[in-house]
Structures are given as structure tokens and as C-alpha cells.
């Protein structure tokens, strides 16, 4: 509880400091909006030309796009410490400063950055979710709402966990941002579309290793009443736990790696 309070106080303070430069903030937020709108437009154009993707209709595809977009960018807002700022913290020695305080490293890393500009991306994602569920004629029930919330929350843990791979590389001072991007941003691009359209190898990758399909597609398919692979309804609530599992594993790896942290400078 105490940790959560600290997290939200830190976030408040960081937000306050970012808003000290309102012009720049607005500019960048707008830039983000443009980028994400472009991504969404690509999906719309695909739907315009192909009408459908296997059994998935336009509304379904928008819904899949929306759930990924909201999850991914929520993580980027609140997990900026891991998703973007970490390499800089190691390079500048800020990580040293964090280690001097009587709190967990990961807590403090998460407490030291926020990226509110992505709020506009989430607006696009939410719009896609709403439009998608309308077009697909989703009848919202309590379990479906729960499934959506769970998918987004655990999806955030998954994304955070995947970005922690980069953080771990960083601790060992291995430069491989681009390689990790294949899993994180590549996963986002690929899993904007439902998993079952991909060949086997990609399906395995995004189901078992970076389980975007488990955390987001299974519940999304359940909400759309087109269960993935015909799996029963309860899987929509159990499968997303894979996201939490990835996070747990990466958290353990991260802690181990921190023991080998060698600091910078003299």
C-alpha cells in the first residue's frame, strides 16, 4: 500500500514537471496522436480492401487493434521507467542514486519516469475498441467487462516483462535494443491482428514465448463470441495469467541481473 502511494505521488510530481513545458507537451502529444491514427488508418484500409480476415470481420479487427493499442500505450505511460528511460538511467548513473535509497529498485525505476504524451494513442485505441465492439455487436455483460479489464491489466504486465529483457541486457551493458524491439514492437505490430492468421512458428512465438495471444487474443475472442480455437469460456480468464507469469520470470531475472550491476563512471 505504502509502495503504491509512493508510486502515485511520484507520478503526480513527474506529471507536474512535464507540464512545466506546456507547448512542447502539446506538440508531442499531438505527434503521438498522428502516429497512432496512421496505424489505425492502415487497419481501416486493409478492411476496406479485404473485408475480412478468415472468420474475423471489420469490427473484430478494430477490436483487436484497440485492445493492443490501449494495453501497449498504458504500459508506456505508466511503465516508462522500464519501457524507455532505463538505458538512460544506467548511462547517466541515475540508477546509482536509486540504489542508495531504502526501496526496491524496480519500484523506484517505475517511480522515476512517466510518459503522458501517449494519452493520445490511448484515445485512438479506445475509439477503436468502441467502434469495433459496436460494429461486432458485442453485448456487454459483467464477465465480458471483467475479461477486458483483466486482459488489459495482465497485458500491461506482459509488455512490461518483455521490456525488462532490454533492461537486463542494459545492466550487463549489452547493446541490443534493436533485437529486443523485434519482440516488443514486433509483437505489438503482429498481434494487432488475431493470432490464428499467422503460420505456426509465429503462432508459437506469440503464444508461448511472448504470449500476447494468451493475454489479449483469448479474452478478446471470448468477448467477440468467436472463441479462439473453440476454447471454452473459462480460458478467457485463465490464459491471461501467462502475462503475469512472464512478468514474474523477468522480475526474478532482473533482480539477479542487478547483482551484477557494475555502475558507471569512476
Amino acid at each position, binding site marked *: 500500500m*505504502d509502495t503504491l*502511494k*509512493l508510486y502515485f*505521488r*511520484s507520478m503526480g*510530481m*513527474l506529471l*507536474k*514537471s*512535464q507540464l*512545466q513545458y506546456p507547448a512542447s507537451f502539446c506538440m508531442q502529444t499531438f505527434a503521438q496522436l498522428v502516429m497512432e491514427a496512421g496505424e489505425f488508418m492502415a487497419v481501416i484500409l486493409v478492411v476496406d480492401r479485404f473485408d475480412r480476415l478468415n472468420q474475423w470481420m471489420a469490427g473484430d479487427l478494430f477490436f483487436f487493434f484497440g485492445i493492443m493499442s490501449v494495453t501497449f500505450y498504458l504500459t508506456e505511460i505508466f511503465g516508462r521507467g522500464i519501457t524507455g528511460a532505463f538505458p538512460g538511467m544506467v548511462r*547517466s*548513473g*541515475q540508477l*546509482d*542514486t536509486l*540504489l*542508495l*535509497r*531504502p*526501496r*526496491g529498485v524496480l519500484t*523506484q525505476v517505475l517511480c522515476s519516469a512517466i510518459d503522458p504524451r501517449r494519452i493520445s494513442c490511448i484515445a485512438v485505441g479506445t475509439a477503436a475498441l468502441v467502434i469495433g465492439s459496436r460494429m461486432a455487436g458485442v453485448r456487454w455483460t459483467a464477465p465480458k467487462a471483467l475479461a477486458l479489464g483483466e486482459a488489459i491489466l495482465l497485458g500491461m504486465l506482459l509488455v512490461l516483462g518483455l521490456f525488462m529483457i532490454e533492461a537486463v541486457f542494459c545492466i550487463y551493458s549489452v547493446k541490443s535494443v534493436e533485437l529486443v524491439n523485434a519482440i516488443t514492437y514486433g509483437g505489438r505490430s503482429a498481434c494487432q491482428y488475431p493470432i490464428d492468421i499467422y503460420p505456426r512458428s509465429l503462432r508459437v512465438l506469440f503464444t508461448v514465448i511472448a504470449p500476447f495471444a494468451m493475454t489479449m487474443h483469448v479474452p478478446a475472442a471470448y468477448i467477440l463470441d468467436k472463441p479462439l480455437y473453440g476454447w471454452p469460456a473459462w480460458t478467457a480468464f485463465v490464459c491471461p495469467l501467462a502475462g503475469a507469469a512472464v512478468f514474474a520470470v523477468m522480475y526474478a531475472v532482473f533482480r539477479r541481473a542487478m*547483482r*551484477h*550491476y*557494475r*555502475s558507471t*563512471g*569512476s
Partner: protein
Amino acid sequence: MAFIETHGLTKTFTVRKKREKGRLLREKTEIRALDALSFSVEKGELVGYIGPNGAGKSTTVKLLSGILTPDGGSALVDGRVPWQERRRHAAHIGVVFGQRSQLWWDVPILDSFSLLRDIYRVPEAAYKRRLDALTSALQLEPFLRTPLRLLSLGQRMRAELCGSLLHGPELLFLDEPTIGLDAVSKLALRDFLKRENAQNGTTVLLTTHDMEDIAALCSRVMVLGHGQKLFDGALNNLLARYDTSREVNVRYDGEIRLPDLPQGCAVAREGADYRISYAPAQVPTAHLLSLLQAAGPIRELTAQPQSIDRLIAAMYREMDL
């Protein structure tokens, strides 16, 4: 049991060299930052920690504050092994890196302080008391509502110091705290540290290149070179060992001929001024002065001690650092 005790503390870094042409793998070299370092510090001591760049000073501070894990040896600070109980340890120490900030750049420093209060879980009453005491001692009241980025370097350093003392640490590490400060700020900072040490019994380990810091603050000096302890004792003892030469400047009325001076004296002439350096151990000062006086009417005579910086440079040279 001393407050800080280290035995054979060793830390090695592997550095990857740039890949040479035609080689598939990069060569690695090992750099021994600390080589079996042992020392102890009593509670309430104010210890200066000097040595040339790369001697291992910062590594020591990082090990003792729990950022790094050593490859060998042991260290106990107030009964704790820093790298094994990092979080518990961190609550009892304060660290200031002169070139690094732990406060938040764009927010008023008071906000930074109150976030630090939450991070260190300082009870409200204790925080209030401590903040009042520190802000008045460091003369921070006028800037409490100013964002850090708008403060001058001296004000910023005072704010950093306040931030790292809010939780009342028993041990304070200062890593080059006076770097880049103007003379007034330096003096104020030294005064504050002296008082903090005297009043609260805070143990201070001070890393610096500024010998005046050491002279003003520290009763004890440790010299580090190549990861090893080269000297440990009072500053005066250290200086006595290297303080082997003195300088005298004389100006005479009118032209004179300087007599032959005994061996061990060196003379440099600039117009009417003579600069004579000598070793008091070989040539007693009284003897030299009588010789000079006999040469003619002296208009001006000044004797100078060697600057500490020069002494340290001489010492580093002699120790081959």
C-alpha cells in the same frame, strides 16, 4: 568493533577493448579497482579520502553504500554488510555525489524533499524537525519553492546535502561535494559539515581533490592509489613527510651580489627578486637568513609554505601514481 570495517576488499572490472582489425573477438582486460583494501573508521570520525583519478575512491564509496558487490573481502558498516542488506543499509546512510543529482530537476525542492520523506519513510514529526534544522543551517528557506533547475550550483549542492540528510543518516558519504563551487559556497559547506559532525555525531567519509577541504575538515586522511591504501593517518603527518622544501623571496635595496649558498639551495632571479628554495632539514632556516642578511640591505622578505596541492602532486609522483 569499529563503525566501518573492511578487510581485503577487492573489486575487479573487466573492460572490453575496442576490437582490433582482423580479430574476431574483442580482447578483455581486467582492471583491479580495489586491491585488498582494509581499513576501519570509528563512529563520529571525519575522514578524508584522497587519491588520483581512477584510484578506486568512488568504487569504495559504491561498495560501502551497497551499489556494488565486491569480488572478495568483507565489509561491515554498523554491523551490516551493505550489499547484502542494501535496503536496510540505505535507510541509515546518506550519499552526495558532487556531479550527480538525486533531486527532481523541474519541481520545487520542497516537493523533492517531501517525496524523499516518503521514500525513506521518515515520520512526519521527525521530518519537520529535521527539515527546519537543515534549511536554516544551509540557508535554504528562500529557495524552498524554487525548482532545482533555477538554483545556482552552490544552492543546488546545499539542497542536495539537505536531501541526503533528511532521514538523519549516521553515516554520510560525500563524493567531491565542493567541485565547481565558488569560494563562499565552499566555506559555507565546510562550516556546515563541521557542525553536522559535531552536533549529530555523523560519521563522514569525504572524497575530494580539493586539499583545502581536507585541511579544513578532516582529522584523518586516507590516500588511495591503484586500489591500495598508501597512507592512513593525520594530515600533518602526511604533509610532514613530503613537506621537504621551503621557499623564500627576497628583494634588496640596490644591486648586490648574492653570496654562495650552501648545498641544497636553488636560486632563481627575476629582476631584483631572488627566489630561493631550500630544504630546512639540510639548511637550517636561521642559517640561510643570516647569509641573506649579510649580503645587503633587505627591502622585502617573504617565506612561503608549499601549497598542499603541490605536496600532494609530489607525493603522487613519488608513489608512482
